[in-house]
């Protein structure tokens, strides 16, 4: 995504503009992050209406509490993703809990499994979205275009060694989505 190239200055300025109550800044924030917010929320909740609601909550949270973003902890994008993650997982847990007929150990385990699966899926989306473009391109070719690594190397104009390295590194990054706790890219706000 283009906004990875945006310097952190943009992040800090955005935070200041939100803090001083500039409605135009809120619009710009939405334009930059709405598709990220909505797609992550949708990945966790699997439902359009719920994703819309979480999108509304996320922007309301940021608009009301811009000061809770700490630029030293990471970029604004990763913080926004962390806010989405927290609110979407919260909502999933609440709605699943409400739907439980009665509390049993088995049902609670199922719920936790579901929550952690949804959680990992959303983290994975974010990781793929934010990883360096060359790694993403290699994964895209090898997985979605079904190219082997030699063809991937040819397509990308790199050596076979480099293609193998990119595929391995890309998957290594992606595998951190299974880690519970804060993945490195999320900026410590989960």
């Amino acid at each position, binding site marked *: 995504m283009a906004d990875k190239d945006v310097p952190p200055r943009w992040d800090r300025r955005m935070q200041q503009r939100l803090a001083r109550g500039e409605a135009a800044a809120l619009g710009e924030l*939405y334009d930059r992050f709405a598709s990220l917010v909505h797609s992550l929320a949708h990945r966790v909740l699997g439902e359009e209406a719920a994703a819309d609601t979480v999108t509304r909550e996320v922007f309301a949270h940021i608009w009301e509490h811009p000061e809770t973003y700490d630029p030293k902890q990471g970029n604004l994008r990763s913080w926004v993703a962390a806010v989405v993650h927290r609110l979407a997982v919260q909502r999933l847990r609440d709605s699943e809990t409400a739907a439980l007929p009665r509390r049993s150990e088995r049902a609670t385990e199922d719920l936790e499994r579901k929550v952690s699966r949804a959680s990992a899926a959303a983290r994975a989306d974010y990781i793929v979205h934010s990883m360096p473009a060359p790694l993403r391109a290699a994964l895209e070719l090898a997985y979605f275009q079904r190219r082997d690594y030699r063809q991937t190397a040819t397509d990308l104009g790199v050596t076979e060694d480099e293609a193998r390295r990119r595929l391995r590194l890309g998957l290594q990054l992606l595998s951190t989505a299974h880690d519970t706790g804060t993945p490195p890219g999320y900026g410590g706000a989960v």
Partner: protein
Amino acid sequence: MSGAEESGAHEAHDDREGRRPGAGDHGAQGHGARGAGDVPHGSGPGRSPRIPMPRASVEDGGLPLPDLADPGDLAPVPLDLPHDVLKSLLGAWALAACSADETVAVEDHLGTCGGGADEARRLREAVGLLRRPESLDLDPALRDRVLESCLDRRPPRIPVPGWAAPYDAETARLDALLQDFGDAEWHAPVRLRWFEADAPATRRTTVAGVIAHLMSVDGLIAAALGLEDLLAGVAEAAGKDAVGPAGRTEAYWRASHFPPTRSVQAPWRDQSHSLVRSVSFTGSHSGGLAVSYGDFELPLRDAMLDRAFECWVHAEDIAEAVAYPYEPPAPRHLNRMIDLAARMLPLALAERRRAGLSAPGRTPHLVPAGAPGRSLRLEIEGAGGGQWLIPLDSPAAVGSADFEVAHVALDGVEFCRLAAGHVPPQEAAAGQVGDREAIRDVLFAAAGLSRM
């Protein structure tokens, strides 16, 4: 391994989600749908010579049939790869993107290398997390709802003036439309259409050219606000030809050696964001600031509405060019745009008279400024509609129901297409009652509001 086995294995693994690396699956070769019989001879495109080629049946070749016991060169050659090469293959292996013999070599190695096996398991699980990105088609109406609920919870200290809201919304909608465009879309041909001297006019460009056009004309407002004019250099070089909307656009198009590309999106969007931001700071009292369009001026608040209208109209041109659906603006924004056109009609009627395109009104000079005059009732139906009384004989007169001589009823979107020069006035689907000459004049004047 024979070609037939290879194809069969590949077909069995056609569902990518269920794909697991395995000895039979050196799948990503790109010919899985073929049967063994029509496998081509020689190297296919992109194939590595290290992978054994599937071959035509030996019976077709006129060669002596091999002894059944002779495996020939079909026997797998065990690969002896060093540890670090095997490790470097783990990603490709997990994605089933290495050759069959490499797959075998990796899997043999994993049996003896604990660290490797652990990583292999992690990487294979990671493959299960890969998903096609979901459709990014956000409901465009969501932006409005989200922003509104935010601003309800915490009222802004620096709001966007109401007259700038349609521009903010329309530029955001167009930006979202452009988001997933590839090169084919950016270079799709677009025919700009408008009305000039009661005749349709057109100009060919591309999707990127349309964005360059929007950016060039938005720059008129940037200039009025004292912001950086992205076209400063171009406009200076082109001299006085490059003052109005069309002149600036043509100058910009000319100044570039190559046709515009997707690279115009970012500067167009940055400029539109900074316009919204600037008018928020100058506040609602700045709405009267004059914006020069070359041969006429509009107050800032109307210029922002005009740009919102143009942004929508051209977004529709673009959507049509690439066969995407595109909705009309939110009703309250549409209403403001219609209102602007209705307010501009009296002046447009006066200009038509001056240009000899219509006969002078029956009471042209008898109406003192601010007095009620002969009027046409413009009834706009549908969302965003309303009623406007258009004074017919002088821009200085005030529309009056007592002097109503004609009544025209049109759908809101149809009226906007008329005012955009996209529907010829003779063909506009309008209900008409009363003075036919007045109605004709108003419909032609509405079409004449359009420009490139």
